[in-house]
C-alpha cells in the first residue's frame, strides 16, 4: 500500500493503542496534522506546547499508559523541553513527536530549525531523528517500547517534514523489537530475595520506604501484603503517595523534608529499611551521613544505576517491584505481634500529629481546604498539584487511598505543571473528579490552558490557595534569610474570578472558612466546564514539619 510517512506514523500510533494526543500545530508538522484529520485518534489542542507535554504526562500518570504529545519544529519543540525534563525526573513514559525541517535543510540554520535531539539528550531516556520514511514504523514502535519498559521515561522522536511527506510502499509487520543495546529486565536474583527475607525475619524495627516505583510497577497490593503480613510500618515518598492507603494503621505518611515527624523518627530509629522503588532523593534523606544510622537496607529497583548511587545498601535486588515483592511475600509467614516498635511509633503519632493553626471565619487555613476536599472525596478523586506549599499541604493532608490519584512534579518541581496535568488526567479518567491544588504564583504559569479545558468541556477544579506570595520561597526567606522577602510578594495579580469567567470557566472567590465546603461541593456539581476557586488564605502560613536543608531527619522544625 502506498502511504505517506505521516500516515504510517498514525497507523503505528493506532497499533500502539494511542487514543489521545496533546498537541499544537505548525509548519513542520502540517503533514502530520493533515493525517490526524482523518484519524480516530483524539487530538486535544492546547494553548502552549508546555501544556501539551504536561497534559500527556498527567494522562500517563493517571493511567500508566504512554502519554503522547506533538509540537512543531523550533519554538514548538523547545516549548516542550520543561515538560520533557519534568517527565524524565519522575520516570514517566512519554513519546514526544517534534516537527523538524526537511532533511536537506538540517544544519543550515533553516527557518524554525532547532536541534531538539541535541537539546533533549540529557533529559530523555532516548531520542531519535528519523531520516528515512522507511524507518518511521520501526522507530515509532521502538520509541513506545523504550518509553514504557524497564524504568519508564520520555522518548523524543524528531520528524523532518520530507520524511513525513514522502510516499513509500508500506505493509504493517509485527516484527519483534530487537534493540542490541536495550534489554527488558526479566526476573531477579533469588539468592538476594532469600537474603532479604532473612533480614526481614530478624528485624525488630523494620520500616518500608516506598516510592514512585511501586506505582509504576502496579505493585500496591503486593506492598500491602508485605506490610500486613509482617506488620511493618510504611512511609512513602512524595512520588509514592497513594501506593499505600494513608488511613491504614501501618501508614506513617510521607517522609523527608516535609514528612511527618513519626515517619522521619521511624526511619532514623529503624534497624531495617525496605526501600521499594525509591531513589534516595536528597529531599528524603536529609544529611546523607546521618540517614538511617542504625539500619540495614534492602533496595528493590529496576534501575541498577540507582543501587548504591546515594546510599550503600546491604541487599540490592534489581527487578520489577511487583515480581520481587511477590517473591518475598511468598517466602514469609504472617506475624501477629504488636511489638515495642509499634508502641513507640504509636506514641510518636500521638505526640506529633500534623498540626496547623485553627481556622476562623476571617482566616482560611490552606491545610483546612485540603482536609475538606479529602473528607468530601474520600480518596476517590485525582489530585494534581502545582509546586510549593500547595504541593506539600496536598501531600500531607489529603488521605490518599489509591495509586495514580496523586499527580505532582517531584523531581524537577515544575511550577505550572498541575493544571495541564489535571487536564490530561481528566481526559484519561472522566469518571473521577480532578482537582488541581494550586498556588497563586504557579497557576499563572500555564493559566492559558483554561481555554483548552473550556473548549473540551473538562470540569477540572482549580483550587488556588491564594496567599499572594510565592509562598514556599517566602517561607525559606523567613527561616533562612532574616525575613527579607525579596521579590516574593505577588499581590499584584489578576482577579482570578473574572479571569476564569473571561475564559468561559466558572470562578468563585472564598474568603470565609465557613464557605469552603459549600464551594467545593458546588464545584463538584459542575460537569461541563472548569472551575476556578480563589481561596484567600492566611498569607504567612508555613509548611511544617520541616527538615532544614543539610540537616538530618531528626532535626525537624515545627510540628512538635
Amino acid at each position, binding site marked *: 500500500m502506498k502511504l505517506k510517512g505521516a500516515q504510517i506514523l498514525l497507523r503505528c500510533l493506532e497499533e500502539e493503542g494511542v487514543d489521545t494526543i496533546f498537541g499544537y500545530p505548525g509548519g513542520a508538522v502540517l503533514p502530520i496534522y493533515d493525517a490526524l484529520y482523518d484519524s480516530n485518534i483524539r487530538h486535544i489542542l492546547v494553548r502552549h506546547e508546555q501544556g501539551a507535554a504536561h497534559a500527556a504526562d498527567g494522562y500517563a500518570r493517571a493511567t500508566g499508559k504512554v502519554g503522547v504529545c506533538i509540537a512543531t519544529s523550533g519554538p514548538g519543540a523547545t516549548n516542550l523541553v520543561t515538560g520533557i525534563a519534568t517527565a524524565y525526573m519522575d520516570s514517566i513514559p512519554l513519546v514526544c513527536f517534534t516537527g523538524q525541517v526537511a532533511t536537506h535543510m538540517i544544519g543550515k540554520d533553516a527557518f524554525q530549525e532547532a536541534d531538539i535531539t*541535541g537539546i533533549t539528550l540529557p533529559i530523555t*531516556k532516548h531520542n531519535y531523528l528519523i531520516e528515512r520514511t522507511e524507518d518511521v514504523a520501526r522507530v515509532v514502535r521502538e520509541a513506545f517500547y523504550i518509553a514504557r519498559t524497564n524504568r519508564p521515561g520520555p522518548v523524543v522522536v524528531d520528524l523532518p517534514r520530507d520524511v513525513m511527506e514522502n510516499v513509500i510502499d508500506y505493509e504493517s509487520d509485527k516484527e519483534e523489537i530487537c534493540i*542490541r*543495546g536495550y534489554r527488558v529486565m526479566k526476573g531477579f536474583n533469588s539468592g538476594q530475595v532469600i537474603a532479604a527475607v532473612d533480614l526481614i525475619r530478624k528485624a525488630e524495627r523494620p520500616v518500608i520506604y516506598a516510592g514512585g516505583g511501586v506505582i509504576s510497577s502496579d505493585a500496591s497490593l503486593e506492598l500491602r501484603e508485605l506490610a500486613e503480613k509482617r506488620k511493618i510500618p510504611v512511609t512513602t515518598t512524595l512520588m509514592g503517595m497513594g501506593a499505600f492507603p494513608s488511613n491504614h494503621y501501618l501508614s506513617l505518611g510521607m517522609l523527608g523534608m516535609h514528612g511527618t515527624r513519626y515517619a522521619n523518627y521511624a526511619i532514623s530509629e529503624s534497624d531495617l529499611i525496605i526501600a521499594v522503588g525509591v531513589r534516595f532523593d536528597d529531599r528524603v534523606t536529609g544529611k546523607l551521613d546521618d540517614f538511617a544510622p542504625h539500619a540495614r537496607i534492602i533496595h528493590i529497583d529496576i534501575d541498577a544505576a540507582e543501587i548504591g*548511587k546515594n546510599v550503600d545498601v546491604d541487599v540490592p535486588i534489581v527487578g520489577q517491584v511487583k515480581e520481587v515483592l511477590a517473591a518475598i511475600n511468598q517466602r514469609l509467614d504472617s506475624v501477629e505481634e504488636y511489638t515495642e516498635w509499634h508502641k513507640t511509633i504509636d506514641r510518636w503519632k500521638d505526640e506529633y500529629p500534623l498540626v496547623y493553626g485553627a481556622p476562623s471565619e476571617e482566616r482560611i487555613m490552606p491545610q483546612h481546604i485540603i482536609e475538606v476536599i479529602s473528607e468530601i472525596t474520600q480518596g476517590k478523586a485525582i489530585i494534581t498539584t502545582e509546586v510549593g506549599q500547595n504541593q506539600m499541604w496536598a501531600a500531607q493532608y489529603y488521605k490518599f487511598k489509591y495509586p495514580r490519584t496523586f499527580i505532582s512534579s517531584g523531581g524537577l518541581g515544575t511550577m505550572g505543571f498541575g493544571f495541564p496535568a489535571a487536564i490530561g488526567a481528566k481526559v484519561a479518567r472522566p469518571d473521577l473528579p480532578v482537582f488541581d491544588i494550586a498556588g497563586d504564583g504557579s497557576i499563572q504559569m500555564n493559566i492559558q490552558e483554561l481555554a483548552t479545558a473550556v473548549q473540551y468541556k473538562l470540569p477540572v477544579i482549580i483550587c488556588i490557595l491564594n496567599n499572594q506570595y510565592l509562598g514556599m520561597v517566602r517561607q525559606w526567606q523567613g527561616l533562612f534569610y532574616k525575613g527579607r522577602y525579596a521579590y516574593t510578594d505577588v499581590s499584584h495579580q489578576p482577579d482570578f474570578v473574572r479571569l476564569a469567567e473571561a475564559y468561559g470557566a466558572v470562578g468563585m472567590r472564598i474568603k470565609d472558612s465557613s464557605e469552603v465546603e459549600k464551594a467545593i461541593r458546588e464545584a463538584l456539581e459542575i460537569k461541563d466546564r472548569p472551575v476556578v476557586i480563589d481561596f484567600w488564605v492566611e498569607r504567612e502560613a508555613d509548611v511544617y514539619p520541616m527538615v532544614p536543608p543539610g540537616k538530618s531527619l531528626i532535626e525537624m522544625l515545627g510540628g512538635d
Partner: protein
Amino acid sequence: MKKHILSVTVENKPGVLTRVATLFRRRGYNIESLAVGETENPSISRMTIVVNGDDRIIEQVTKQLYKLVDVIKIVDISEEKRVERELVLIKVKADATVRTEIVQIVEIFRARIVDIGRDSLIIEATGDSGKIDAIEDSLRPFGIIELVRTGKIAMVRGGSRG
C-alpha cells in the same frame, strides 16, 4: 583514584559519541582520553575510554553508560592482560646540525620519520603511554613545533574478546 580503561562497544550511528560525552559531562565524570573507531563489524564501533575514579565512580559510570540505548557492551579491561597503544605525530625543529641526533632518538624508540622539511621533521611513534611520553620528552629540547596524540586503544591478550 585509579585509571580505568573501559572498552565500550556501541552502535555505529551519528550522535552516539555525543551521547557518551554528554553523559560523562552531566554526571561530572572526567574522561582522560577517548578513542573511537569502527570494529570488524561495520555497524558497531568501539570506544576506548580512559577514566579516573574510585571503584564506586567506575561502577556508576558503567551502569549509567549501560542505560544508553546505543551502548551494547562495556568491559573494564584495566585488570586484564592487554596490549595498549597510542600514536603520536611530532613535528620537531631539525636543522642540519641536529638531524643525526634526532635520527638516533627515532631509532632508539623504533619510531619513524614520515616527513622531511627544510628545518623540520615529522616523527611518528606508537606505543604505550610511557613510551610516547618518553619520546616526547627526548625531542622537546630540539623544539616541538606541533604535536598530535591519539587516545589510547587497547585489546585483551589471548583468544577472548574485550
